[in-house]
């Protein structure tokens, strides 16, 4: 019998109970089964419901967040933001979407037509497919794979190829530069992602997203409390993956115009924009699921629909990305790669080792979770601070040339106060 898991569990309230939209779907499937439909019908129906639901939700969320981001960044930048179209400018994204839809789609003469045409469509795939394994609520998940975490990482790696296809096929030098930057960057940060998520899996002992949320629910804790370093690294890797400042070097506006989608216009550009937001939601959703307790909120999910809690956390976390974009300058590509390989990877390796040790101590001695988890939390937070600061010291990020300074004030003209750096003229300070 397919979808047993959807019908398993305690009988919830009626199908119209908003606390769990899976109810409604389960009711519908049961209704189809009762009528004796063909065996493949429940698959198709539930799949369609999930896909259409995620698609609609992501498009509307994107539209809303285009507005929200513009308003919030405007607030950060002491200006008003869109405020003409509709109340509070809420219709601005609609107007933007209409404009994008009616614009001409130009294909450069030297472009590789097949790949140029395919990339904007394919770029949506990895962004959307990730949501298949993410539980929006207790039973609201399209396919709760038991390798969900690995699936998320694998899908992320497809993104690399699509971005390369877009940049290469445009036959534009800025696009190619952007594409090569992205490829180099994404494969570096894939490792960071894997290690950051691995530390979580070590604790939860499962790669199933539902089980990870369940673990956090069971022990009444969020994984961020025991794995702060992993979350920090994952946020950074996520920012890299969705091209947000300080890591938007793939589409660095001030350097390479728009990176890999320089040549795209009209709705094709819109697809890239949409995919960027949806991928951002996906990263936020992964963070919420893996580190911030998913759809649970310490018992409140009994009263408030779990999917509302999940979306609330997701949007709240997405605000962090908006905030980052509004406040930080951009790193250079070699600095970003150096940060991944020299800074984050060693820290994460230590972190995974520690997580393994902790779980070993916990399991071998059969300690009670209530006693051992707070201890781990305190130890890991302290260690995270020590590691972050200490490793920064070791790498020399606190050396004089990394610290702010003041100009010398002089009264008389004619003196020369130049002190050369110990390096060649025109060069940059070598990384530690």
């Amino acid at each position, binding site marked *: 019998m397919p979808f047993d898991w959807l019908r398993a569990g305690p009988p919830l309230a009626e199908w119209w109970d908003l606390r769990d939209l899976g109810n409604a779907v389960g009711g519908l499937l049961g209704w189809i089964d009762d009528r004796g439909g063909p065996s493949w019908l429940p698959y198709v129906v539930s799949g369609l419901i999930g896909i259409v639901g995620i698609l609609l939700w992501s498009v509307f969320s994107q539209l809303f967040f285009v507005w929200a981001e513009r308003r919030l960044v405007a607030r950060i930048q002491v200006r008003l933001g869109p405020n003409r179209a509709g109340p509070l400018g809420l219709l601005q994204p609609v107007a933007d979407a209409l404009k994008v839809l009616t614009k001409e789609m130009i294909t450069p003469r030297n472009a590789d037509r097949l790949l140029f045409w395919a990339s904007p469509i394919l770029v949506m795939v990895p962004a959307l497919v990730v949501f298949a394994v993410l539980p929006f609520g207790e039973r609201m998940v399209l396919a709760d794979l038991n390798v969900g975490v*690995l699936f998320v990482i694998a*899908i992320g790696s497809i993104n690399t*190829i699509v971005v390369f296809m877009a940049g290469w096929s445009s036959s534009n030098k800025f696009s190619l530069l952007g594409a090569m930057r992205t490829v180099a960057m994404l*494969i570096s940060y894939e490792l960071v992602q894997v290690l950051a998520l691995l530390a979580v899996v070590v604790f939860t002992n499962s790669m199933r997203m539902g089980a990870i949320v369940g673990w956090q629910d069971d022990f009444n804790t969020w994984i961020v409390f025991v794995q702060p370093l992993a979350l920090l690294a994952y946020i950074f890797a996520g920012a890299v993956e969705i091209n947000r400042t300080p890591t938007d070097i793939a589409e660095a506006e001030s350097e390479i115009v728009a990176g890999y989608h320089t040549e795209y216009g009209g709705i094709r550009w819109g697809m890239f924009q949409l995919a960027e937001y949806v991928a951002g939601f996906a990263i936020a959703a992964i963070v919420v699921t893996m580190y911030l307790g998913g759809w649970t909120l310490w018992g409140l999910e009994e009263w408030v629909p779990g999917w509302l809690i999940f979306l609330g956390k997701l949007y709240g976390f997405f605000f962090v990305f908006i905030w980052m974009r509004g406040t930080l300058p951009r790193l250079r590509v070699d600095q970003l790669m150096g940060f991944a390989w020299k800074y984050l990877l060693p820290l994460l390796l230590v972190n995974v080792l520690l997580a393994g040790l902790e779980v070993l101590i916990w399991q071998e001695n059969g300690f009670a979770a209530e006693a051992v988890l707070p201890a781990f939390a305190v130890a890991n937070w302290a260690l995270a601070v020590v590691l972050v600061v200490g490793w920064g010291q070791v790498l020399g990020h606190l050396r004089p040339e990394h610290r702010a300074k003041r100009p010398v004030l002089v009264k008389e003209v004619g003196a020369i106060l130049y002190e050369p750096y110990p390096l060649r003229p025109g060069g940059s300070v070598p990384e530690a």
Partner: protein
Amino acid sequence: MDDSGSVVAFWTLAALTVGSALMVVAVRNLVHAVVYLILSFVGVAGIFVLLSADFLAVAQVLIYAGAIPVLIIFAIMLTPRAARDNAETSLGLPALPLVGALLATIISIAVVTDWPEATRGGFEETTSVIGEALLSTYVLPFEIASVLLLAAMLGAIILVRED
């Protein structure tokens, strides 16, 4: 595997895999060939899902659709434009009968042999079983493989390093 869903899935995925693999042979542009190769690998990942090897399917996507094409693309980009065609050598025609004969042999063996087929269904949980096997029965090959990876990494770095 006789439900209609599996049958449809198998034929679709087989057509995708083989079709893309043939396109790798046929297209003239090496970058297009890489894209078709990725498509073929994704098809293989689908086949793995069909064979209830979920861990392998995801690993296949991660490595064969994510990592190795990136390597190939970098190799293509580091060599000049002129080397980006996908032409064949003069061995193309002689290779055909050879490959045909090989194909016929394997297929005949596959079809003629009476395999001791099991009656159980798909696997419930593969990841933990693979993990345990890797760290118990196959711990020596596992370690050797990791050393090999390290050696390959160092070798690749030393090969292309600029002195």
